[in-house]
């Protein structure tokens, strides 16, 4: 059954839909508003006054910069690792048939299906068993486990739509393996890789659970925010940072959506 086209929905349905959307997005707006409040110890509504002084304060706090830079570096390197491994793995799985192919496919996707806390505990005990001290690289490894998945899923979907004879055609016309990759494979999977890469970056950038288990003394931006909420001092600084995080993660996801909207869905965006 389907509702008749052209006939407008009843008012009650419209109201319900509006309420749903408001419930989802009003809290976000509140966060933005509190970034401008003059009250620094607690969040009171309505804000007693509006100011932009917290932007300057945030700018001058070294701990914010440290956390931000750590998060950006972790996200960038995890994404780079994911792009390389995810592409290679998806190429292997979709271009050849071998024993255990389905199993490998499942094992690659598993980290995103597992609760982050399981991944986190597993990695933490593995690191301590192997006597690997917690560092920047342990965070990167933790994040790479789920970043690989989104790149892999996007690339596999694209490979599936790419005709296998295209690669043979390229070889037939005189291109060796590298030339074929550079001139045929890469242009055909480029947008899928871009979408997967941006999504991976966004996932890594706001990740808390796995990071909690794999980080040592360092604080990534989301963890810094959690700590900051407990402190009574300069509360709106957190809100300013939250605004930045929303923008930094929203823009790539929007871009990924527009780049791949005709065709692939952004697999794994539910993490």
């Amino acid at each position: 059954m389907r509702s008749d086209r052209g006939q407008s929905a009843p008012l009650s349905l419209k109201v319900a839909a509006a309420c749903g959307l408001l419930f989802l997005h009003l809290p976000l707006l509140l966060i933005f508003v509190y970034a401008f409040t003059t009250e620094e110890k607690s969040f009171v509504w309505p804000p007693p006054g509006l100011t932009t002084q917290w932007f300057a304060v945030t700018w001058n706090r070294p701990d914010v910069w440290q956390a931000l830079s750590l998060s950006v570096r972790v996200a960038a390197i995890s994404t780079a690792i994911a792009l390389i491994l995810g592409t290679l793995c998806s190429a292997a799985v979709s271009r050849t048939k071998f024993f255990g192919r389905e199993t490998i496919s499942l094992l690659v996707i598993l980290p995103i299906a597992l609760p982050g806390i399981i991944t986190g505990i597993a990695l933490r005990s593995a690191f301590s068993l192997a006597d690997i001290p917690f560092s920047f690289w342990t965070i990167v490894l933790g994040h790479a486990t789920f970043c690989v998945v989104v790149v892999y899923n996007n690339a596999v979907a694209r490979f599936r739509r790419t005709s296998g004879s295209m690669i043979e055609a390229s070889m037939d016309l005189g291109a060796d393996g590298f030339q074929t990759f550079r001139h045929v494979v890469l242009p055909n999977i480029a947008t899928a890789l871009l979408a997967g890469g941006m999504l991976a970056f966004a996932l890594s950038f706001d990740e808390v659970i796995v990071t909690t288990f794999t980080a040592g003394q360092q604080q990534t931006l989301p963890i810094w925010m959690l700590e900051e909420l407990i402190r009574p001092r300069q509360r709106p600084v957190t809100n300013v940072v939250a605004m930045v995080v929303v923008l930094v993660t929203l823009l790539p996801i929007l871009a990924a959506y527009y780049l791949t909207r005709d065709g692939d869905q952004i697999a794994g965006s539910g993490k």
Partner: protein
Amino acid sequence: MTSAVSFQKVSRHFGSVRAVDAVDLDIVPGEFFAMLGPSGSGKTTCLRLIAGFEQPTSGSISIFGERAEGVPPYRRNVNTVFQDYALFPHLNVLDNVAYGLMVKGVGKPERHKAAEEALSLVRLPGYGARRPGQLSGGQRQRVALARALVNQPKVLLLDEPLGALDLKLRENMQEELKSLQKALGITFVFVTHDQGEALSMADRVAVFNDGKIMQIGTPEDIYQRPKTRFVADFVGSSNVLPPDFVQLYSGQHRWGSLRPESIRVGRAASGEGVSARLVSTNYLGATTKLALDADGLRLHAIVPAGTALPVEGEAVVLTFNREHLHLMDEPA
């Protein structure tokens, strides 16, 4: 003279499947060679062995005298027109055609000029700026052809290139491919499951079944003088006659074949011949195909349109010129 392509006892096995089984083959330079057979008969695997996408399990392949085993596709002077055309969707038509020259390092003005010429050759001049997605099936087919020919291959391989086209377009392309091949003098190796296509286009035809070549010969050879029951039946659906029947007419106890158009159908009272019963008639336009039952033996006859026909179920007498009865090599 060295063969364009030569197979010596070439086999290609996939696990226990013998896709190509000890095939010997010599393709003469400059000929239009067709590989004909039902799907799964090994003809496409043979083509892929020539292109280099498959390596033989055993035996040896040479292309213009050079050993081809272990040589990757990109080092063979052989180009392929793929069944699904395999055009690059991210490149326009001109860059698709120029691709082979681009990877060889030919400069842009030069390779674009060569690509334009190749497009004119397949009668698509001025289509260079379009994307493959904007072309019709027949046009894509021509682009695929131009893309292969621009490299001036010694052998052009065509994998069921007309399969996806409608009938009218297919007939046009058949003629065009044939005249293109004559004009260029390139050896064409053509894979098809359509016997009409193979017979009308090729200089020689190899009939494949179960990974083996059943018969190689000119279209006339294959059509008039099939060596085995399979060839007789697959190429133009000849009547296959059992040894006992053949012995009555030729004195030899061997399998025979008789073309449907060689059988004359007369009224039962009209004299001597094989008595049979008309089972059904099938009107085909210029001719009519009759299904006959001669004492349990199923036969087909083709008579020109306008012939007075018996009614279905009527008893008839079949006559044929004994010269038209062809004895096959296949042992009884």
